[in-house]
């Protein structure tokens, strides 16, 4: 009983009260910041400021709570320093991720809401946290990527700039008039409301392929209409080329057995000969 009576319960209750008050006030302040910033700033800045305000208030109240409990701040900071070094050695990966996270915040290669590509993963950034960045992929998967990976690897931000260029490869038969097809494609870009008038769309001949002349059809679209733009213009290309009688070839394979060999004999079987189809090859010579 002497152990319990020796404890200064009043101080501990005050400390706990201060900690709880800090958490409550921090949450309330963070919510107010979110409400205030939501209409005035980007999602990224709102989240960053909300976290900053929350942690600032919680840390201030935590310091006050420690003082109230009778801890000297110098000793606490010293202990924290030693603990940090010890933890740092024990968990280098986490420390590396935390520092990488700071670099990501300073360098700002992407923001919350951006569409990024990391290695083979494409997704919308839904969170930039202490250890990792969270993505939501177009097929609605949740992907967590450590901050260290993002610092080391190539990151493509697909929505940094307001407009994007789409490059489509269109193959046409060798017999077709390239200039006519070029005019046709440019006409489609002009009619499609998703394609921007400026920068101007253009067509390049990129290769004489195995079975087609390959054209690159490039046009610009707003960043939020990439899928719509690509799909609608591809449908329009197919319809227009079909309407104009322009052939889109598929790979053809010819078998050539040498100049002295006889050509292969190809015979079209009529309905009357179909019955023979059922006879196995081994039985034919009998």
């Amino acid at each position, binding site marked *: 009983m002497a152990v319990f009576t020796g404890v200064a319960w009043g101080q501990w209750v005050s400390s706990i009260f201060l900690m709880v008050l800090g958490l409550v006030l921090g949450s309330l302040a963070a919510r107010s910041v979110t409400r205030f910033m939501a209409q005035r700033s980007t999602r990224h800045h709102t989240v960053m400021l909300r976290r900053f305000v929350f942690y600032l208030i919680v840390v201030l109240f935590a310091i006050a709570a420690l003082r109230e409990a009778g801890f000297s701040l110098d000793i606490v900071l010293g202990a924290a320093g030693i603990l940090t070094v010890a933890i740092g050695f024990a968990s280098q990966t986490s420390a590396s991720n935390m520092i990488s996270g700071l670099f990501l915040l300073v360098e700002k290669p992407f923001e919350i809401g951006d569409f990024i590509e990391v290695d083979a993963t494409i997704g919308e950034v839904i969170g930039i946290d202490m250890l990792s960045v969270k993505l939501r992929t177009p097929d609605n998967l949740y992907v967590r990527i450590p901050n260290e990976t993002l610092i080391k690897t190539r990151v493509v931000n697909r929505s940094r700039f307001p*407009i994007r260029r789409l490059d489509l490869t269109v193959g046409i038969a060798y017999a077709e008039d390239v200039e006519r097809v070029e005019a046709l494609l440019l006409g489609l870009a002009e009619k499609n*409301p998703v394609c921007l008038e400026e*920068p101007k769309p253009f067509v390049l001949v990129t290769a004489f392929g195995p079975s087609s002349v390959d054209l690159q059809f490039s046009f610009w679209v707003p960043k939020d209409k990439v899928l719509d733009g690509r799909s609608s213009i591809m449908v329009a290309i197919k319809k227009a080329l079909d309407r104009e009688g322009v052939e889109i070839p598929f790979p053809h394979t010819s078998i050539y057995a040498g100049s002295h060999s006889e050509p292969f004999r190809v015979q079209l079987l009529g309905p009357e000969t179909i019955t023979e189809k059922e006879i196995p090859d081994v039985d034919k010579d009998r």
Partner: protein
Amino acid sequence: MGPETEGRRDGVWAKPYSLASGQTQSHQLGHVNLWVTLLDREWQIRSETLEVETDPVSWSETIGHTLPSKDVSLQRFIRSEGSDTVTFIPAVASLPTVIRPYQPLTIPAGEQCVIYVGTLVWMQVCVGDGRTVLTEVPLAVPSLTWVGRNTMEGELCYSSASVARLVLEAVPKRPWRAVTPVTIINRREEPLLLERFSLPTPMLSLYLNERGQLWTPGVTVECETDMNSASLHVDQTVFAAAGKCQQVGLAREKVSRGRFVRAFDRMFG
């Protein structure tokens, strides 16, 4: 002449039309066909965009009980008790509009001119006495373009090819386009080649004159030493030649200083 044709009238902006339950009001305006149907508990709005060779100059309106085919896209809205009126309010484009004269125009040093440009308007379908906006429809398919120093810095804009007429009488009066008189003053010592310019349409309000034509206040652009020092000014009142006007649509954006700088900074591409 059938009953449909007999009831055909000219459509009017900002005039409340009363409908009875089950009635459909159809409009043919610009490149759009629009049907507004009043039912006991809901409003139905159907619209389709037409591919027309020449720009229509009239707006016809009919009230009947005929609905279009099911292929036409339908929007449904809840209707509160007693609201049986529908009003059509014009609205300016939500993005700046780039005006590109078919033939570039040169303004010699020290000269000034007034160009009349027509810009596309959106039709807001408003219901009830409070004019609650249900939806808005562009009266032709707007095309997009980019104005800026490069593909990184700049602004998305709507595009409008224009004859850039210098004589008011030659300007076609279409109820689905608003006329803006743009005064360009060249104070430089060199000629100014006007290939295209960005009109800050979201900052313009809309006025309707007695002949049913839409006008916006005039815009004055003054070029001093170089393009970047050009100043842009939106008039407070409508051009006198528009005649007696009443305001029918508000500007989408207030004229802010920052926006203003950007607008004239990119005025000439």
